[in-house]
């Protein structure tokens, strides 16, 4: 096995019909929705950035406190504070043209109809190459059960959205289930072009001085390196269950972390919380994946996908 020159390695990946210039995506919630990209960091190092989720109606979000640093993680319950689709289209969407990389629009909803409506209005916005569905929200039509906790609900959302949009659709799955495989399969059968996982892991903390929950919302989602092994396993198992591309995420801070996900079967990786610690993390991870391919004598990063996973069900590239 000879090490290849870095320039000869193909760093690209595909999500459905959309090609990304590299494997590294900014996860939803860490770069707002448009107007403020690029002020702190150069987002062009990313293969794509995912917008903060947009809902049909404006949302004030949860009360305070909303965040608490946890061991190797961040516990948060923001509550989807956001402008709603109308305000987003009028004020944020025009700025998407200025973003120096591909954009993935993230949609959150509390009913199947809301997902379909918002996704349809995101389809065709400048630079937007895919639509991610934050199906970890509670479903008001099913007594507040999380969409992504149930294969049928997940499939309902994907099917309704696919009927309304032309862009590739990504279903973002939750780790807060006994088995992620049937849910991944349901998303695939309903027509999802890719799945992304994992969303935050549910958790809480108690303020012992005040004898009360720390977060105003009581429970929150844990992100950061603390959840990485949970995420790697979810990607590993999902990669054995579906053929569509998987975007792996959960606690990635370094190239080595990202490589774990790729070897488990992820065709792209997303970085969330680590952006807050290291604004240059995207370039670092993208370069490290190219180096990993070069060290193994491979001509593309894609050739690494699933190579540690003997039951990898996706498409292998050589």
């Amino acid at each position, binding site marked *: 096995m000879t090490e290849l020159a870095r320039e000869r390695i193909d760093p690209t990946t595909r999500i459905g019909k959309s090609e990304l210039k590299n494997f590294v995506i900014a996860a939803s919630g860490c770069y707002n929705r448009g107007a403020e990209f690029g002020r702190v960091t150069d987002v062009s190092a990313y293969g794509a950035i995912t917008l903060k989720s947009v809902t049909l109606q404006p949302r004030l979000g949860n009360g305070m406190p*909303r965040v608490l640093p946890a061991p190797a993680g961040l516990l948060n319950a923001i509550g989807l504070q956001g402008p709603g689709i109308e305000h987003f289209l009028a004020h944020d969407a025009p700025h998407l043209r200025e973003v120096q990389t591909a954009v993935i629009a993230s949609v959150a909803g509390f009913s199947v109809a809301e997902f379909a409506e918002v996704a349809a209005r995101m389809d065709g916005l400048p630079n937007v190459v895919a639509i991610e569905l934050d199906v970890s929200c509670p479903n008001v039509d099913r007594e507040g059960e999380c969409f992504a906790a149930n294969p049928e609900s997940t499939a309902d959302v994907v099917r309704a959205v696919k009927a309304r949009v032309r862009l590739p659709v990504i279903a973002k799955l939750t780790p807060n289930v006994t088995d992620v495989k049937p849910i991944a399969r349901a998303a695939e059968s309903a027509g999802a072009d890719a799945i992304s996982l994992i969303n935050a892991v549910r958790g809480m903390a108690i303020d012992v001085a005040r004898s009360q929950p720390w977060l105003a919302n009581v429970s929150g989602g844990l992100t950061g390196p603390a959840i990485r092994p949970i995420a790697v396993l979810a990607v590993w198992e999902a990669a054995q269950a579906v053929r569509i591309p998987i975007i792996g995420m959960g606690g990635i801070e370094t190239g080595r972390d990202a490589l774990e996900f790729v070897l488990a079967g992820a065709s792209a990786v997303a970085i969330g919380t680590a952006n*807050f610690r290291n604004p240059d993390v995207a370039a670092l991870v993208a370069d490290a994946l190219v180096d990993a391919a070069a060290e193994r004598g491979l001509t593309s990063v894609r050739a690494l996908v699933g190579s540690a996973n003997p039951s990898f069900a996706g498409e292998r590239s050589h």
Partner: protein
Amino acid sequence: MITRRECVAPGFWCVGFRAPRIAGAVRAAQYVAIDQPGRFAVRLPLGIWTAEGDEITVLFREWGERTAQLAHSDIGTAVDLIGPLGNDFTIPARGARATIVAGGLGVVPFWLLGKRLLAADVQTRVVLGARTAALLVGAAELRALGLNVELCTDDGTAGTRGSVLDALDSEPPADIVYGCGPPNMLRALSKRCVAANMPCEISMEETFGCSMGTCWGCVVPVRRGAKQGSGYPKAHAESRDFDYSRVCFDGTVYAAADLVWSA
């Protein structure tokens, strides 16, 4: 790089960093986001206390794991800082009268502000309070700048017995009031200044997540239409009629008249 570290009161630490660019650019109420080695997922944000030459200092209470690690770091340790971050206070015209009201560690933004006000020929009065004498920090440094500092403590162990707000009654109103400290003190100060139609600016504190304005974890309620608010429309089914503003990115300084305390 950490240049010094000193325990200034029980549990209170002053840590210095060599940071020439930040020291040259910093304004009052700004902060740095500190990357720490080890099992921390986000940076530790701390308000900048002093800035002289190539050095800045932060003054903080040892409270959790992150502050404990910083308090006990070795001098010479390399540290990655992002900053200065956040907005700053309004400086009034030459000859104006300003009152600074600080509770406990709320003194942090006022070394830089005091210095700036003195340079701008603003007549500045500082009222610094704490629960007890042992928790009064920063007075000596403010006095060393040439500021007139009045002390008060809840238990009377230093200065006047009573709250910083009582001290406001003893003098004619100022052209502008600056406040930083515990939430109850800020709520009372804010309401009082708004009722008296006195300009007042407050530096707010919340637990930050990202320290860069993107996670929306550190919001404070502001009146709808405030320029530091999100500007998002009101939700149809929403009974709460205020907006949220990000302390880390839109603040930390707010006009008292924009803050909503009943939320």
